[in-house]
């Protein structure tokens, strides 16, 4: 069997040499104080959005600090091995505590610095603000004095060493299943919390709030992942897959009802379109490993097709299809383009596909631009595209009009949101079913080792073409909804890289950074990129630059993406596996 001869694990020393009781106390007090400081006023002037001038009630970004501080306190208490909190940190509390303490510091100081920057100087901070800053710092100092519970990973790279300070989550043996009713309840609570967080994120009306929220959410997620809590949750949802998925969709469907106006539903529906398209790309890139750099063109094909058959006045095709027919047509035409493009290119060296798809992406835009009756026959209306696409009427409901259900008004975009949600459900279904089947196994086998895959009887060309065409089809499907949502279709968005998603680079990033091959990964990646772009408007001119830098950094430090299924993480960190050594018998 496997013999491991590792030296006895000696934990590395904490960054600050504090006695353990002192450290723990300091973190707990720091967390409590940080949370409490949210109730104080941080600034004199109400020019900073969110009104942080009130003592006794948190406002705006103070809510974020409140939650962050509370989390620090929670993790710190869990470090005292209090029985009731064991569910939070099955993998060890101390590493997670450090993470969340950094997060609390980061978001609090972000707020304070934003106040100082926008209002012109540190003098604008009241004593409450200073208290918040100091409290969060104390919390971090205490956390840095906590014992470290993992062995030194031997990382040479100094930046990676810092990131590895909290250690890696230990491989936990699966916990025994709780009674089913309890587990279902847990899932429901988690979904509700998720919905709340998501709604808060979309609802943020000013960039600073979103920035602080994002910082806190990122560190909180990391901490929960490190502590093993997220892993346990994943185990539980894994046991009740269908229920979890249904509940998630119900929660998403409820989302528009929680909004008082249609603005956030607009963000929501665009996010869904982006996410659905990313899932389609996930089949091509994530499962099968094909390099598709021009994917947005398939979205465009679907959109233009839907526009042409929608009965729009300027459409050169004078038909009006019922929606289901338009959707199918858009998907089918897109799929056909996928086959046309894939058939010659998938036979040859894989890297060529990258350049061909990139070219196709560019050519698509040029062609639809040219087919305006002047440089070419008038099919697509050229730079003006096809405007005034009529709204859809499904089962008598005109999606363009507001409807009132149970006293809550759903505007135009909310209606389309619900429609797109149905499409997402379909795409998720197709994706998860095909990936867990014989077909999906063949795709992954091709990606892992094409020679071995063909030796097992897999017709690699056929399956690559299938993946490519399926991806194109799903994108086309999403495109048909997009055409109606946006009232019109123009060539401009279908570029390789640009400030506004979806475009090919963003789609690729959503899949790769979200987590290739998983269902939730691309959706979360898409949400992240879309919201970052939509919410951080004050960074507008730097957004693309930051995007490029983010790509480089992610590939350097976490190439498997945010939601990594274990296989991909292993693929990318082959030389760093800590798990049981292989015993090589004989030679």
């Amino acid at each position, binding site marked *: 069997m496997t013999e491991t001869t590792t030296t006895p694990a000696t934990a590395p020393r904490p960054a600050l040499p504090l006695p353990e009781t002192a450290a723990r106390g300091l973190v707990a007090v720091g967390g409590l104080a940080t949370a409490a400081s949210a109730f104080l006023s941080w600034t004199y002037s109400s020019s900073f959005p969110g009104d942080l001038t009130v003592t006794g009630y948190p406002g705006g970004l103070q809510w974020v600090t409140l939650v962050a501080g509370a989390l620090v306190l929670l993790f710190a208490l869990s470090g005292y091995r209090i029985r009731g909190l064991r569910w939070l940190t099955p993998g060890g509390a101390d590493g997670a505590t450090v993470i969340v303490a950094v997060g609390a510091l980061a978001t609090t100081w972000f707020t304070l610095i934003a106040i100082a920057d926008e209002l012109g100087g540190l003098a604008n901070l009241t004593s409450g603000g200073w208290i918040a800053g100091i409290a969060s710092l104390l919390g971090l100092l205490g956390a840095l004095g906590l014992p470290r519970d993992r062995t030194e990973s031997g990382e040479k790279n100094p930046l990676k060493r810092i990131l590895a300070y909290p250690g890696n989550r230990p491989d936990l043996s699966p916990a025994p299943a709780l009674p089913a009713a309890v587990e279902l309840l847990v899932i429901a609570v988690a979904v509700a919390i998720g919905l709340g967080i998501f709604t808060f994120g979309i609802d943020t009306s000013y960039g600073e709030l979103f920035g602080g929220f994002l910082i806190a959410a990122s560190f909180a997620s990391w901490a929960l992942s490190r502590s093993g809590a997220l892993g346990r949750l994943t185990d539980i949802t894994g046991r009740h897959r269908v229920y979890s998925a249904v509940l998630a969709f119900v929660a998403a469907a409820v989302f528009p009802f929680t909004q008082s106006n249609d603005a956030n539903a607009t963000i929501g529906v665009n996010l869904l379109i982006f996410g659905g398209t990313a899932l389609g790309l996930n089949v091509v890139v994530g499962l099968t490993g094909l390099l598709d750099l021009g994917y947005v063109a398939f979205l465009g094909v679907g959109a233009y097709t839907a526009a042409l058959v929608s009965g729009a006045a300027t459409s050169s095709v004078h038909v009006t299809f019922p929606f289901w027919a338009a959707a199918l047509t858009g998907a089918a035409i897109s799929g056909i383009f996928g086959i046309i493009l894939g058939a010659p*290119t998938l036979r040859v060296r894989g890297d060529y596909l990258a*350049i061909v798809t990139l070219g196709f992406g560019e050519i698509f835009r040029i062609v639809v631009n040219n087919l305006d009756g002047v440089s070419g026959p008038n099919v697509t209306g050229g730079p003006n595209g096809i405007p005034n696409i009529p709204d859809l009427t499904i089962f008598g409901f005109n999606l363009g009009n507001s409807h009132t259900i149970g006293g809550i008004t759903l505007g135009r975009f909310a209606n389309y949101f619900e429609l797109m949600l149905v499409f997402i459900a379909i795409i998720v279904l197709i994706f998860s079913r095909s990936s867990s089947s014989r077909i999906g196994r063949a795709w992954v086998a091709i990606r892992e080792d094409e020679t071995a895959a063909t030796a097992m009887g897999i017709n690699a060309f056929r399956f690559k073409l299938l993946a490519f065409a399926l991806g194109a089809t799903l994108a086309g499907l999403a495109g048909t909804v997009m055409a109606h949502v946006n009232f019109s279709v123009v060539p401009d968005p279908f570029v390789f890289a640009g400030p506004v998603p979806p475009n090919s680079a963003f789609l690729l990033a959503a899949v790769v950074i979200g987590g290739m091959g998983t269902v939730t990964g691309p959706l979360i990646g898409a949400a992240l990129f879309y919201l970052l772009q939509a919410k951080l408007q004050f960074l507008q001119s730097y957004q693309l630059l930051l995007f490029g830098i983010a*790509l*480089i950094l992610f590939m350097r430090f976490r190439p498997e993406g945010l939601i990594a299924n274990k296989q991909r993480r292993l693929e990318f960190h082959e030389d760093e596996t800590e798990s049981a050594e292989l015993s090589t018998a004989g030679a």
Partner: protein
Amino acid sequence: MHELPQNLANGLLLGATYGLIAVGYTMVYGIVQLINFAHGEIFMTGGFGALTVYLGLGSGTSMWIALPLMLVGGIVTATVIAVLAERFAYRPLRNAPRLAPLITAIGLSITLQQLVWGFYPKAKSPRVFPSLPGGPFHLGSITFQSADIFVVVAAIASMLFLAYFVQRTRTGRAMQATAQDPDTAKLMGIDTDRVIVIAFILGATFAAVAGVAHGLRYGQVSFDMGFVAGLKAFTAAVLGGIGNIYGAMLGGIVLGVAESLAAGYIEKIPGMSQFGGAAWQDVWAFVILILVLMVRPQGLLGERVADRA
């Protein structure tokens, strides 16, 4: 059809520029199987580097003095960026699955574009590039500018240098060896890391020359000039046979001529009257790529890539 020679000449000049960029793509791909997506931006920064030197020299400097300095400036800029990219972005990912360095390259490409767009003075729209004095010259029915002479000279000189380098110098032969079989090359004592850096440097040098050529011919440089040029250049590299440096230049020329002829003559084909001209030029280039892949995927002169089974 007396415009045919002119069209051919234009195509040749266009293609020579493609070829200069393509050579860099193909060298890097041949050795490390990396599509250096950011190579187009290296081309772009070369042009901007040259422009910076020119602006620094002050107006009134004769182009005879300025041009060599501009070339140096462009080459230095481009090579520094290329070396940094190789060392910090690509080298750590050398053993990672193919997708990771590709995404990195895309990120780098976007980053470089945005850095120029955001931080180079007035680069949000194209910036004027100096032109060479003299000309236009006439050769039979062909008219060409001084910049065109520069392109021809640069292309020929580059290919001659490259041929000499690859076949006659130790480093050049080491590069060939590494391209064919990196593991054995290492066993033979070749410092493959150094070879790879040199490949990047050479590629960046030629790209920078192409950047200057582009600026001279079109009278401007812009932050986004690298994207389409890079795409075309990689097409040219594939056309000629990936990994094959002579193929890259040949592919570039073929592509340039084909584009030029398509722009000029497609519309004369009955039924295709609306598909010619500059608007469709890029489309035809792409169609050519697809056809070549279908008919002769190893390219005109054959691939030269290590088999990394």
